[in-house]
């Protein structure tokens, strides 16, 4: 079982990287290139805007990651203990569920010179036409950093909250404060060093993602020159197939960039350990970190507000008809954008649903099989297996997807649902697995033993005890799977050979068009689908277990 999953995950990534790597040094027999050389790399470096693209990638990727970590840690320190886990979970869910592309489109609607914020300011500033400001697609990448941060802060908050539940925070906080340290200092000196090992992998996922994001960078990022990942996508999809060679070299650069960022992170961690020890031993209590915590909280609240308004603006635009500047709301409303499903959104919705259901079911089945396999072997997970699960989230997508596409083309798999399902499952499976592992292990082992001592064999124990008791986490994992599947842009685009149109691929394409109503429809559906999945994951167990107190939310299961 483990071996199957390992091959399903590792093989495509390794093969994809190998193919991309070969093409990066000039070997791509499919287009007649067989000579090993550094020409592709030289061509890439000679491309206009390459160095700017590199700089933009580093600034946006590292900037968004650092900002997100600071904000998330600050919010946790300021708000921990003041908000119940359930309430914060419910608050975070819509932000986690909304795909990056939908959030980016909504933010563009909100921030653009003709967007909501400018409209709100227009009467005050006396603007009689949209101001000439590059607030979206700005050459510095500020809008992209903002967009990434809106999505990454909730993710990191969730990760930190779950790490904190494994640490006696209240006791350590009380102990630290009774020794004369302020709240913020205890967080920095005592709590965070314990949290960090538990969130290191998720932070690396955020880092890798921010450095190689494509869909959000297309919508919010600078366009000329764009970030490296977008530049590579343009090269890969250019009519001149000769450009595939420098593009592959670029994919290698991208992968190296991420690897270098991981190395820097590990160096920072080591430096932090040394400096931190020195700092702790000095015993300084004077510094107050409170203002920093509150600033982080206020900034995060603003980010959450922007995210909520962004999603609202998607919905409003999809129903708007006449909406002239500088009206705060549309003059007239219309169902016209929604009333023509035949124009494409019905087909895209159908494709999206098929892919989401198939990849989620596949990933869930594999995850349950893996976890049950661990149970039956009566052993925990080896460290390498844990790393394996994270692997697809740590390697930049564009680096191996192109090579995998070349491979699939040769096998004749490209362009079909199978190829897209497999490629999406590479990213859905890890999230499903991560979401399900902790609740699965937290299941009271005595339940299973009691069932065994009553004569129930392993299959009956699985189907009549484990799965029903774990219904809530299983459905939550499924909802996460749906959200991840719906959000996939690059795997769908590459493996579907552009023939399988989903809400995400269409929304990204439409985002550069002028008709915000149609874009609004696609982006609303794209955000609505995962949110509906989360809703179902909440309602179904509540309904089925309405007479089972210990299985309801908050109960001790």
């Amino acid at each position: 079982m483990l071996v199957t999953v390992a091959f399903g995950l590792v093989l495509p990534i390794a093969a994809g990287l190998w193919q991309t790597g070969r093409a990066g040094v000039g070997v791509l027999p499919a287009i007649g290139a067989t000579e090993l050389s550094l020409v592709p790399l030289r061509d890439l470096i000679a491309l206009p805007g390459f160095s700017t693209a590199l700089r933009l990638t580093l600034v946006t990727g590292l900037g968004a990651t650092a900002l997100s970590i600071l904000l998330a840690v600050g919010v946790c320190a300021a708000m921990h203990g003041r908000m119940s886990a359930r309430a914060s979970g419910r608050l975070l869910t819509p932000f986690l569920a909304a795909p990056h592309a939908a959030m980016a489109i909504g933010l563009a609607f909100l921030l653009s010179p003709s967007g909501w914020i400018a409209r709100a300011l227009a009467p005050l500033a006396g603007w009689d036409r949209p101001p000439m400001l590059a607030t979206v697609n700005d050459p510095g990448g500020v809008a992209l950093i903002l967009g990434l941060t809106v999505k990454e802060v909730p993710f990191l908050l969730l990760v930190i909250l779950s790490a904190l539940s494994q640490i006696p925070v209240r006791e350590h906080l009380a102990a630290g404060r009774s020794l004369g340290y302020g709240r913020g200092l205890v967080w920095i000196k005592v709590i965070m060093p314990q949290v960090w090992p538990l969130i290191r992998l998720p932070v690396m996922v955020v880092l890798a993602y921010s450095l190689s994001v494509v869909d959000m960078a297309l919508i919010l990022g600078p366009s000329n020159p764009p970030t490296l990942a977008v530049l590579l996508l343009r090269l890969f999809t250019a009519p001149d197939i000769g450009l595939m060679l420098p593009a592959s070299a670029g994919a290698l650069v991208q992968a190296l960039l991420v690897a270098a960022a991981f190395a820097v992170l590990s160096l920072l961690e080591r430096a932090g350990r040394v400096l931190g020890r020195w700092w702790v031993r000095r015993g300084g209590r004077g510094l107050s970190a409170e203002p920093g915590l509150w600033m982080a909280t206020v900034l995060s609240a603003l980010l959450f507000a922007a995210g909520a308004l962004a999603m609202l603006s998607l919905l409003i635009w999809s129903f708007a008809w006449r909406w002239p500047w500088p009206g705060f709301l549309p003059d007239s409303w219309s169902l016209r954008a929604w009333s023509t499903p035949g124009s494409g959104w019905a087909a895209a919705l159908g494709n999206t649903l098929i892919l989401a259901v198939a990849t989620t079911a596949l990933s869930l089945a594999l995850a349950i099989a893996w976890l049950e396999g661990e149970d039956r072997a009566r052993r925990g997970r080896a460290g390498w297996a844990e790393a394996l699960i994270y692997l697809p989230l740590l390697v930049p997508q564009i680096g191996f997807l192109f090579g995998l596409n070349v491979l699939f083309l040769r096998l004749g798999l490209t362009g079909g649902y199978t190829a897209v399902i497999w490629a999406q499952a590479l990213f859905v499976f890890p999230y499903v697995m991560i979401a399900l592992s902790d609740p699965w292990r937290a299941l009271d082992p005595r339940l299973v033993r009691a069932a065994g001592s009553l004569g129930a064999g392993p299959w009956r124990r699985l189907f009549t005890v484990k799965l029903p008791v774990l219904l809530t986490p299983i459905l939550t994992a499924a909802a996460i799977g749906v959200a991840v599947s719906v959000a996939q842009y690059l795997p769908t685009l590459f493996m579907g050979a552009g023939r399988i149109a989903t809400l995400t691929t269409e929304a990204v394409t439409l985002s550069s068009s002028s008709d915000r109503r149609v874009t609004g429809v696609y982006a609303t559906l794209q955000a609505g689908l995962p949110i509906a999945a989360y809703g179902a994951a909440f309602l179904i167990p509540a309904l089925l277990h309405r007479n089972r107190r210990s299985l309801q939310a908050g109960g001790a299961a």
Partner: protein
Amino acid sequence: MTLELQEVAVAPKGARPLFPPITLTVRPGEVATVMGPSGIGKSTLLDAVGGHLAHGFTLSGSIRLDGRDLSPLPPEARRIGLMFQDAVLFPHLSVGDNLAFGLARSARGRAARRAAVETALDRAGLADLYDRDPATLSGGQRSRAALMRTLLAEPRALLLDEPFSKLDTTLRDDLRAFTFAHIRDRGIPALMVTHDPADAEAAGGTVIELTECTPQGSRTGCPHHMRRRNPDPA
């Protein structure tokens, strides 16, 4: 039916055994007790007998039930019932369905099975609680339901893991009497681990006391000392 432990010891991988080898015969209807401080491996001993030993533990010696070696059997084939300190009813099933889960396959037919469960509920003073959510039962009710669930599976031996420690004193006496009476009735051997000397007293069977290894203890046989009372009550 007789439960026989012959030189049974359990060791974590690469470490010394948790307790010195235990040799013990539990006759039909007898409740033998193993006592000792927490962390000494009492529950691990029950895991070994029930077949629930975690990966990484090695079992030495032999465990026989009615002369049959249990070691090759998975837990579900051993037919050894298990009682925990807090009942551990399945939270997703109603009280009655918990019992039905346990009820042996030999009871056939919907009506017959339902009747068997109703009878058992009745005997446990739980009549009319078939459809109740187990989470809404009192501690004593839950323990009785768990015992009935275990007995309906027609076990050939019973393991009790501090079954009464979470109940208050009056309830504890009641439930002890209730449980031991059922064990005698069935004529099955039972092995109980507990902290409470009163449990051992009431059980009336063989008592094995495991004590922590102390520096002085090394003279009397480290790592643990074993004391046996009522070696042969006959």
